């Protein structure tokens, strides 16, 4: 599924549950039907308007990667 980055950030200060992942990117992605979802971006850092595809779903959290 391909979506577009609506907004994003890189987190440097996280609670214990995510401490090992720091720094990590979180993004709100606009999906083809117009709705939005919050997920993680793995691999290359994504910017607003980049197209991303969902590569994984871990415990209900979508993980996205930039599409070239």
């Amino acid at each position: 599924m391909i979506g577009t980055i609506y907004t994003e950030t890189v987190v440097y200060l996280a609670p214990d549950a995510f401490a090992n992942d720091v720094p990590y990117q979180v993004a709100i992605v606009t999906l083809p039907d117009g709705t939005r979802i919050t997920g993680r971006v793995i691999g290359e850092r994504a910017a607003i308007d980049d197209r991303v595809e969902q590569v994984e779903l871990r415990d209900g959290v979508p993980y996205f990667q930039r599409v070239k």
Partner: protein
Amino acid sequence: MRPVAIAAAGKTPFGAFPDRNLRSLAVEAGEKCLKNGHVSPSQVEAFYLGNFAGPSFVGQNHLAPYVSTALGIRDVPATRFEAACASGGSAFFHAFLAVASGVYDCVLVAGVEKMTSQPTARVTEILAGAGDCSGEIKAGSTFPSLFAMIARRHMYQFGTTREHLAAVAVKNHANGALNPDAHMRKVITMEQALAARPVAEPLHLYDCSLISDGAAAVLLMPADRARDFTSKPVRILGVAQASDFVALDQKQDITTFPAVRRAAQKAYEMAGVGPQDIQFAELHDCFTIAEIVALEDLGFVERGAGGPYEASGATARTGEKPINASGGLKSKGHPVGATGVAQLCDLVAQIRCEAGDMQLKRNSLGLAQNLGGSGASCVVSILGNV
């Protein structure tokens, strides 16, 4: 609805107080307030307490009677209100409704939070509870990261820069240096703000408000009765509360807060004034971007113009529209449940000409904006000279 006034106010300093527990902070603020109004606890007809996460921070539930009885307030309704960082404002709004509608003639409102007995990582976790825990928080969002995403989008849509954000921080820290009750009284430079370590990009250390302990209280009475207790009653001209989605990903446009716009519109209507009439304001700068967006949502400037307006100096204490002359949450600190009530104490001090080094010349009509979470709750209050 009859006219209502703030007859008295009182608060604690804000900071990290390892030797103070939650109840002692709330009692200090409450006692100062009652003393300020020459009112005895037995005259209080209801108690409204704003507190975000006492159960998580200190393990105590049932906080309103826990505090009211310690103040010597017995038998009357005592209730805790929670609306994330707008908990204090929400307690005030509901207390106002009860007095305005004629149910009570004397109501005490307090706000309190004790945050510093938990380590930062745990505080971050508790604060994240103001977000959508089933979605954005599970995905790894922290509270600062939600506002970071708002900032990122605001920069994309309007060209807002990190320098605009830093201008807010520099101004509020400069103002806070004049505030004896502020958590942080250190002045910072633009260079320091820009060079500070990142928390969640583009927000860096000085873009984020502090983790603090503190409490504040105000006493509400019908306006004519207030004159029997104080020579300086402060009229509540307008107050409104509004709500919106908790999750950022459910909102159409995250660069504006519908709850702020709606609460502002209703408060302006009740007061019969417009944004151009407001002489000074205490706004909810939990993060620097929040003050910029608030300027826009309150109608002080056009959409997207908040950053340049801050950079122009217009919002400085010497500017045309002083914002956060108290130092704002940035410098005062942000004991979450106390903040909304403390903003009102700051407005009252200005209007009564009791603000000391922070005193503004144009002090007749002030506005307080108290925001909950990343915009799901907002209370806007307009106070003025009778």
